[in-house]
């Protein structure tokens, strides 16, 4: 079966801050990395490849440097990489992002199984996978913890649903969002890196897409608008104790006694 994994490059440190005085955002200094939640989806795809030789493609949407994330995936064992990049796609919310990705997937060739991570560490919405499936008109299942069996036309998986474990069979093609910690992700192979060098990545831009209506992409295609960003409210009733550590331990003890926890 043809497998495609959707990944994202995220900031190495996710901590964007607000300057208290100017109200401006302060950029984190560290570099970028592959979204850690995507590693489990990649591993699940590569497990299937190890079993039956299924080709695994990887696709991302981002600025040109997101190429690095694709290279990492190829060095792990993925066969083909796609990078969706174009200024037209900037400022996209969940709807526009998922629509853009779905357009990219349509250009990446016929897929049987599309795998996503649970969420990203920079957006934290955990919504893009489900919206991509809707745009593609295929079923999806979130919180998948294991792939039980598969054949030419379907895949059977276990997924978490609050306090239930649901075993479900989905016809192919379908999209699965995999939970974290369900396998042990592999590292990029040094040997593959040496062999492949700078990986071959297919770049997809707006001009490559079927849907040429610019109003479906980027800021224009985004129903939600960020009105403003602001630092979180501070707690003015707090009490801060400083001093010798044994005094602080005694303080802890007296707070807990006063509040009847000990």
């Amino acid at each position, binding site marked *: 079966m043809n497998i495609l994994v959707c990944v994202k490059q995220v900031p190495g440190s996710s901590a964007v801050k607000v300057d208290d005085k100017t109200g401006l955002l302060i950029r984190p200094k560290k570099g970028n990395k592959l979204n850690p939640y995507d590693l489990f989806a990649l591993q699940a795809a590569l497990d299937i490849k190890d079993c039956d030789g299924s080709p695994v493609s990887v696709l991302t949407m981002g600025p040109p440097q997101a190429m690095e994330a694709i290279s990492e995936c190829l060095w792990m064992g993925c066969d083909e990489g796609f990078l969706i990049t174009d200024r037209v796609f900037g400022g996209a919310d969940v709807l526009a992002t998922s629509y853009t990705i779905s357009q990219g997937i349509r250009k990446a060739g016929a897929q049987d199984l599309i795998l996503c991570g649970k969420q990203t560490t920079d957006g934290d919405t955990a919504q893009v996978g489900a919206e991509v499936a809707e745009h593609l008109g295929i079923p*999806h299942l979130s919180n998948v913890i294991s792939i039980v069996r598969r054949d030419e036309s379907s895949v059977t998986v276990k997924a978490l649903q609050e306090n239930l474990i649901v075993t479900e069979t989905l016809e192919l093609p379908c999209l699965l969002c995999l939970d974290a910690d369900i396998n042990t992700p592999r590292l990029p192979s040094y040997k593959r890196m040496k062999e492949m060098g700078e990986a071959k990545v297919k770049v997809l831009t707006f001009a490559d897409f079927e849907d040429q209506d610019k109003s479906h992409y980027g800021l224009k295609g985004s129903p939600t608008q960020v009105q403003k960003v602001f630092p979180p409210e501070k707690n003015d009733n707090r009490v*801060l104790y400083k001093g010798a550590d044994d005094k602080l331990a005694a303080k802890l003890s007296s707070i807990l006694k006063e509040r009847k926890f000990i």
Partner: protein
Amino acid sequence: MGLIIHNNLINEEKARALMGSCPFGAMEYKDGKLSIGMQCKMCKACVRKSDGAITFEEEQASLIDKSLWNGVLVFCEHYEGHIHNVTFELLGKAKELAKVNDEPVLALMIGHNITSKAQELYNYGADSVYVYDDPGLKDFLIEPYANVFEDFIKAVKPSAILVGATNVGRSLAPRVAARLHTGLTADCTSLEMTESKDLVQIRPAFGGNIMARIMTPNHRPQFCTVRYKIFSKPPRIESDKKPIAMTVTPQMLASHARIEEIEVKSPDVDISEADVIVQAGRGVKTQKDLELVEALAARLGARMACTRPLVENGWFSAKQQIGLSGRTVKPKLLICVGVSGAVQTVAGMKGSDCIIAINSDPEAPIFDVAHYGLVGDLYKIIPSFLKELDNVQ
């Protein structure tokens, strides 16, 4: 619409300054022209710094007739008719939001043999409860549930929709929002309603120490998800109204997936229900050092929780993480040990009755939310505290 760069007002020096002001590194200066790449998150930091060299062009007049969309809808999360508490919390919030413009509070319940259970939604403040009750809807399957939800929205036209950020809600809400080409804001921590029926959705954003105020000004319905324990459950007031039955058609039940088996998990050590929690953060240097924190938890009869980095280290299961990407907790006592207090983390603990933080960095943002802050070394404070307790007994 979007950001417009007036390059005639920009020289190289100004361009460099503006590039430095962008938190996402989305600007590029090439051949005397400043441009904005797709990393742009529309935070508009550059607009404020540019003295008019970058302007934001607002959206043209609204294309939709908002008067056709009315009511604040709560999607009812349940399993075999047992309603999840997040539903009641959302009904309480929906009532506040609906009051602003005198809109009705609506509730939607989908399942099988649930009509009598749906009555309970009236007791928590719904004005109208709609039920799709059919054997084909017994278990949650994404396609039939999305079809039914779509049918409901097209029939009743609610203006705003609140969905619990449970596994089902996080799967269903995006699916339906995408189908209706409308916006969805995940994990809102605060909601307000404007007098023009626009839902103000506030959530921590960009993964960092920032809150974003998000609106869906030109699309209806306005979708958002909210996690369990963010809002408070309203008082129960008995009502004798009857749920409204909606028609389920065979077309709605078409599915490319089927349920093979459902097992009920043995209840987790679920931190979201715990009364006393001790949370470890990155200030705990090694996995071995966790023993110290665990000793504190054991002494207080507390559940152990952690921050995201410790889950990423593999020291804890993701279920033990407090934060936007983990669980929301509302305990009577939360002790944060070596937790810095990123907004991501803090978003999951705001409702706690009493937060005590131990951290050696007096500037750590955790002290902004903690009721009691102890600025000191956890490796000394905790042993000293435990020793004192032992001496007392």
